């Protein structure tokens, strides 16, 4: 049902271009982190802990963007039935799961010294956990379904419904939390920190784009390998 079986892996020159982008992305990240740490004064209440924001917040933002990519390309796949769209969605989901896991870990590393506990049922952290589980479900579907069309269409359905649910989950968890007033996480960013945050946000964005592209290339190569072995098997059978 999918059109355009992918016979050729991605060309070598395109790969080199992206490799350069990858080096740039990571260099930019190192620079952003260094700058942010250097120029930001310690926070009045949190002290040096404030610096964790430079990795935790961008990671959280990327975890929001990636499911959006999954949504767009899942819809695109159902419309076009092009395998490439399915593979982009899947790559974005894998990257999203990585960033979700990282955001949760960083959230806990922040929570422990701030409030003395590893986990609070804080609205954002809890929603992030649910998003992580939704992504895990998506990846599970991709892992256990062997039929290519079935896998693509089921993943698309799961991805779209999951993405739609993200804001609903966040709203319901937040209402749930406001009923039981506990600590709120710092939401406003003091102007002194904005530059550092923005730099790091862009850095994370570049890294995420690079990851999705890289993962997509790998998926294309895998697909080309499957295509080649299928044709080889057919030829061998016909002989």
């Amino acid at each position, binding site marked *: 049902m999918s059109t355009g079986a992918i016979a050729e892996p991605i060309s070598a020159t395109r790969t080199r271009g992206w490799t350069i982008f990858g080096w740039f992305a990571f260099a930019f990240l190192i620079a952003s982190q260094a700058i942010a740490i250097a120029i930001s004064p310690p926070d009045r209440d949190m002290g040096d802990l404030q610096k964790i924001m430079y990795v935790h917040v961008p990671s959280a933002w990327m975890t929001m963007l990636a499911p959006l990519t999954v949504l767009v390309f899942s819809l695109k796949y159902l419309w076009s039935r092009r395998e490439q769209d399915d593979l982009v969605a899947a790559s974005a989901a894998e990257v999203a799961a990585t960033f979700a896991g990282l955001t949760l870990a960083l959230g806990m590393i922040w929570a422990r010294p701030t409030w003395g506990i590893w986990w609070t049922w804080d609205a954002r952290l809890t929603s992030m956990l649910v998003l992580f589980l939704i992504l895990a479900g998506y990846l599970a579907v991709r892992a256990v379904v062997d039929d290519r069309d079935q896998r693509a269409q089921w993943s698309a359905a799961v991805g779209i419904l999951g993405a739609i649910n993200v804001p609903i989950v966040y709203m319901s*968890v937040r209402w749930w939390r406001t009923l039981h007033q506990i600590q709120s996480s710092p939401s406003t960013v003091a102007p002194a920190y904005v530059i550092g945050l923005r730099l790091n946000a862009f850095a994370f964005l570049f890294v995420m784009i690079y990851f999705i592209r890289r993962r997509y290339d790998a998926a294309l190569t895998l697909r080309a390998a499957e295509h080649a072995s299928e044709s080889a098997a057919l030829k061998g059978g016909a002989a």
Partner: protein
Amino acid sequence: MPWRDEWRRARAIAWKDLTAERRSKAVFNSVIALAITILVLFGFALGPDAQALRDAAPGVIWLAALFAGVLAFNRSYQTEIEGGALDQLVLYPGGRRAIFAGKLMGNFVLVASTLAIVVALGVILFQVDLPAQWLALVAILFFGCVGLVTLGTLYAAMASRSRVREVLLPLLLFPMLVPVLIAAIQATKSLLGGDLMHDAGAWARLLAAYDVIFVAASFLAFDFVIEV
């Protein structure tokens, strides 16, 4: 009129499933038994202090219905898959919507009955007082049940045809149902406590919105899920 044909077909599917169930009672009995068992086990886990039980009751009731429902959802496609009838039904124009509607209605009757029994038993075992606004409670039970059953029926269409169905259905379903669980449990808790904060209405609205969104989305998604 194609609409009426669809509706008739959906009703026929639901009726067939429910009649088969009424005769054998296999699924119904297992689902009810599981729900009751869960209720009792939670009683042991959380009790015997009366206040602790009363506080936990709304959560336990909905979780019991959820876990028991999962059992029902996967089984609802069993007969068609075994008989190979699914491929036939899919070929009818508008047949897919009818399949989903039929399965949905069948599952709804099953889970709603389970929920009713669980509430009745829960009120007794967990020493809960029935609220004056029992009608509002019924509304919450209805909207929550719709949410559970809609996504359950959709995801079971995939899980029941995969090799790891027992694991895949909960894994896919539970995170998606977080808003339903939160809203239904909080609204139930609020109503059982006399709705002092008047927040049951807000939760009910969230549930209704969720239901509208996901009933529509599930009908659309089912087309794609069932055709491969």
